[in-house]
């Protein structure tokens, strides 16, 4: 039985439970990358704790039994190539059976390499980068107009922020004072062709967002406590959109994939699967503490 809200646990158990959840998601990602034609391993492993805290620490107000529930928070997973991590989180949270993860990129499955719009819990089909933040603006604008309290969370990759549409939308979000909008950037520092600072430098990254009118918090994107405190504190400022800059490691947890642009995408051989699982340690028994 999956835990759904670690924030209700005693502090001592809460962080350990979230860490277990993140490792459980990583196990799923490893198997998806080994059993399918391939997966975006690096970006899935780096975004794992971000998704864990969003879904399993009571940040996102969602109900897996009613994915379109009125009043829910919106998660727009703009770095759609890391679908393995998103699917693992959605399945563990109960949006669809965990068993279904085995169908990732298999013939006839709905779990495509980049999320289809028909998957429960997916608000926007993503994969082409630079789409999530503009769409998130629209969702947030509608919430402001209707006077509704739901929030919109957009998860972006760092390389994705080389797309101009991200900055068009960043400007609009600040201009329209969308403090019901939260963007989380998975700052793993590596894109498909190499390190971001070599391919197309993003730094000073936090300053860029600040200068565009966002309230920025930098966190360790693998420290669930750090992430949790930031994500439970939004909006960081009234009248401003919030930006969580999460410093992460591409391929986190799998020794040979860490920081390696070559593991932006790939299929794990059976030997690599075993090494990856050994790196991660035994699959945690989720919910064991509850």
């Amino acid at each position: 039985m999956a835990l759904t809200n670690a924030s209700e646990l005693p502090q001592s158990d809460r962080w350990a439970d979230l860490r277990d959840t993140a490792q459980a998601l990583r196990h799923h990602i490893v198997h998806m990358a080994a059993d399918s034609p391939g997966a975006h391993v690096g970006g899935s492993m780096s975004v794992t704790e971000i998704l864990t805290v969003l879904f399993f620490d009571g940040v996102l107000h969602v109900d897996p039994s009613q994915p379109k529930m009125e009043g829910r928070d919106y998660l727009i997973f703009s770095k759609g190539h890391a679908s393995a991590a998103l699917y693992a989180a959605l399945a563990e949270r109960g949006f669809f059976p965990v068993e279904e993860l085995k169908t990732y990129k298999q013939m006839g499955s709905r779990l495509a390499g980049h999320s289809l719009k028909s998957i429960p819990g997916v608000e926007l089909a993503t994969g082409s980068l630079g789409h999530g933040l503009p769409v998130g603006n629209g969702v947030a604008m509608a919430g402001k107009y209707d006077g509704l309290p739901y929030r919109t969370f957009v998860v972006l990759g760092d390389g994705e922020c080389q797309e101009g549409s991200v900055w068009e939308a960043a400007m609009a979000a600040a201009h329209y004072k969308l403090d019901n909008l939260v963007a989380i950037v998975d700052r793993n520092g590596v894109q498909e062709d190499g390190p971001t600072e070599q391919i197309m430098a993003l730094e000073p990254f936090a300053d860029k967002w600040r200068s565009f009118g966002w309230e920025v918090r930098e966190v360790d994107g693998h420290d669930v406590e750090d992430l949790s405190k930031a994500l439970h504190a939004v909006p960081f400022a009234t009248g401003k959109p919030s930006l969580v800059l999460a410093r992460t490691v591409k391929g986190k947890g799998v020794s040979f994939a860490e920081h390696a642009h070559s593991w932006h995408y790939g299929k794990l051989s059976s030997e690599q699967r075993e090494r990856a699982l050994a790196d991660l340690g035994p699959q945690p028994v989720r919910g064991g503490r509850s």
Partner: protein
Amino acid sequence: MSVASVADLKVGSAAWIERTTLSAVETCRLAQLELARNDERFFSLEADLGDFGGFPFRDEFPGRSIDFGIAEASMIGAAGGLSLRGKIPLINTFASFGLMRACEQVRLDLCYHKANAKIFGTFAGLQAGFSGPTHHSIEDIAIARAFPNMTVIAPADAVSAYWATLAAGHHPGPVFVRLAVDVTAQVYGEDCPFEIGKGNTLREGGDLTLVASGLTVVAEALGAAKILAGEGIEARVLDLHTVKPIDRELLAQAARETGLLITVEEHTIYGGLGGAVAEAVAEEAPVPMRILGIPDSYAEYVGPYPEHLRRYGLDAAGIAASARQALAARRER
């Protein structure tokens, strides 16, 4: 145009036409106001190209009017987001920028998601005249038509543009409407049937069919038919205001009954109305065709709009000349 001044007049009546000045973009905006007054789901989205004699929508519904500045991807993406929340965005910009600068946002955020959003593209075709190829929009129909779920409309005049806008507003899913800023020739009056997907027969004739779509060229096709009638040639004229989904039945009937179709559009000859008609007729009732439009080139000639039309043979005289040639070629076969 004073919006209030036409409120009590019958749409398409002589007085209404006089007050609206027959600019399609203005009548489109008039219809947008009408939509917004009756349904709070309608929002107006602009990208800094909204001033056509003031901002009546913004004045009347400031909370539902959003300007994104010069940032089309931001605007179209947000339209996708608004529609996820049940709003109906009415997106206003130039045809070339809305569909081409933000092409992928239209493709994914609107069309793939079947967003209930409408794009009103002004300066379609060569209407930007002197402004040059950056502002001409001669590929928009081909692009819009290629997207699954997209409906593509090119109204024939300002009256038709009014009804097209209302129809688009009530039609579920993404719709692209092609418009122009200048005053264009009047085709319709108070009687303007407009049903998405259903072409209008403007003139009967049995010798050939002129199939036209869009501002100016429908009127020019009617003018060509008049010239040809003086020579004893009876041309049927169809206003195919909806390019997608296309009225296959009307086209098949015209093909069977007249045996020759000439399409007329202010658009590249590849993939626009001509392509759409050819696809339908080839399957339903193959007959010889001529596709009139802009050949494979950008219009670098600097000149006024009517001169552009004349140079591409899209004015009444040019269309009539093409019709004569096509009829002669058919006789020789």
